[in-house]
């Protein structure tokens, strides 16, 4: 059992941040929403008839792609795989070319379209994934942000285009974030997760030092007391150092 007692609302049109330490089950929760990991209980999508019927469209941006970097596949191929019926080996349909062009322009990455997928940097790849996830105008976007510093950070994503796209399209955004400053600035609501829900609510009310300590457990506790250990530096594992950055 990875997660238990998960009871949360994700509100329409809002940015909800999912925060918690490594191994808290954040990605697992996203996968459960996608129906990729088995779970008990119920995930219900409620919407009024004016917003369309049937199952909602869910866009998903995974944390990273663990694919074969040598695969002969261009960004255009990648778009065509999910937007045309006939195999990409017979070329790309006009429709898939157009939608790829438009979607990539939307995230400011139109120049990447004929590049091989395996040659893209982490940040470029993430833009491609985001462009694809947004292509079909999702009702809900699940965004699993990579650990910042390695790839495009949440701050860059929001600063560059995500904030603007979100204000135009008003999908519900569920964001896994490792950067509490991004969460503080951009999220309407926060769900703090550590194998169960530690706390949830409006961002300003939820991201209190007490709640963060409760969520990150001994790491955060350790760090708080570290400067007082007498010789001015810490012996904490790197994870605790990252937590400190999250708290500021």
């Amino acid at each position: 059992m990875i997660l238990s007692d998960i009871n949360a609302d994700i509100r329409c049109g809002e940015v909800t941040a999912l925060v918690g330490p490594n191994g808290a089950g954040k990605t697992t929760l996203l996968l459960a929403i996608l129906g990729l990991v088995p779970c008990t209980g119920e995930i219900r999508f409620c919407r009024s008839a004016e917003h369309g019927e049937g199952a909602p469209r869910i866009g998903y941006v995974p944390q990273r792609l663990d694919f074969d970097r040598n695969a002969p596949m261009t960004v255009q191929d990648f778009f065509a795989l999910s937007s045309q019926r006939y195999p990409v080996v017979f070329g790309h349909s006009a429709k898939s070319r157009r939608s790829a062009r438009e979607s990539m322009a939307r995230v400011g990455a139109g120049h990447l379209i004929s590049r091989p997928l395996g040659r893209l940097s982490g940040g470029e790849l993430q833009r491609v994934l985001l462009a694809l996830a947004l292509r079909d105008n999702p009702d809900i976007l699940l965004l699993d942000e990579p650990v910042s510093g390695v790839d495009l950070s949440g701050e860059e994503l929001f600063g560059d285009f995500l904030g603007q796209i979100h204000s135009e399209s008003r999908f519900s955004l569920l964001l896994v974030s490792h950067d509490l400053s991004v969460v503080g600035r951009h999220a309407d609501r926060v769900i703090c997760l550590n194998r169960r829900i530690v706390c949830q609510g409006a961002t300003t009310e939820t991201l209190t030092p007490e709640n963060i300590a409760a969520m990150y457990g001994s790491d955060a506790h350790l760090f708080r007391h570290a400067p007082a250990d007498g010789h001015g530096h810490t012996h904490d594992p790197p994870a605790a150092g990252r937590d400190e950055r999250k708290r500021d």
Partner: protein
Amino acid sequence: MESLLGSLFSAIGVLLPFDFAEPLFMKRAILAMLFVAPAAAAVGVPLVHFRMAFFSDAIGHSAFTGVAIGVLLGVHPLLTMVAFGLFVAWAIVLVKGRTELSSDTVIGVFFSTVIALGVAVISAQKGLTRNLQAYLYGDLLAVSEVELLWMGILLLAVFAYLLFAFNKIMLVGIHEGFAKSMGVPVRALEISFALVVALVVTTAIRAVGILLVTALLVVPAAAARNVARGAASAFWAAAVIAVASGLLGIAASYYLDTATGATVVLVAAAFFVVTALGREMFRR
């Protein structure tokens, strides 16, 4: 049916006016290769993308048991070989989905089990070893007309399947969760693709044998990667390399008097080496 094969044979005679293509058994071998090689290469492209080479090898080796069961029951080994290959493929996918073990560990367990089972059954039956030779190394020159028809049907079936499933399979190969969010039925595709691979592998064993069958799927697709940039060029390059290796290999084996299956795989390997060198030179 006879007349269909007959006209295909005469077409080969016209298109390949060489010594080696003259005898009827050679025409059969060429036609078999023209059916099996493109099917193997077409499945090989997503197979390599999926990193399933080891899976295909395990299915190939399940033929030990498949053939042994056929001989024991007194039915045509081809039937039991295909059926048992399908069963093993399904079992591997099933077990993989229900355990935390990595897929190569699961496949490794099946791999050794099916070989051990096959060898045990065969060793208990005197005289079975001779039968097995044809399956170990392939026996393209002894392909029967019934087998030819089966190979032709397989080629059509594989292409029909890929017409429907190719895009989705490639998407799953990139990221399962992402594919699922795009509405791809991941599980159904995994199972169906595994079964199609099993069909192709067990059929191709007649051509190149248990030991080399994976090469027929993997080597053309790998060589194609050296020259291709996009998905379309990779697919067609693999198909062309597979057919060229098949025909050149059969011709070479005729004149050099070497085992046909092995020669075909060697030619394919040569394609890989040449394209890999070309890629290196082109990069500089």
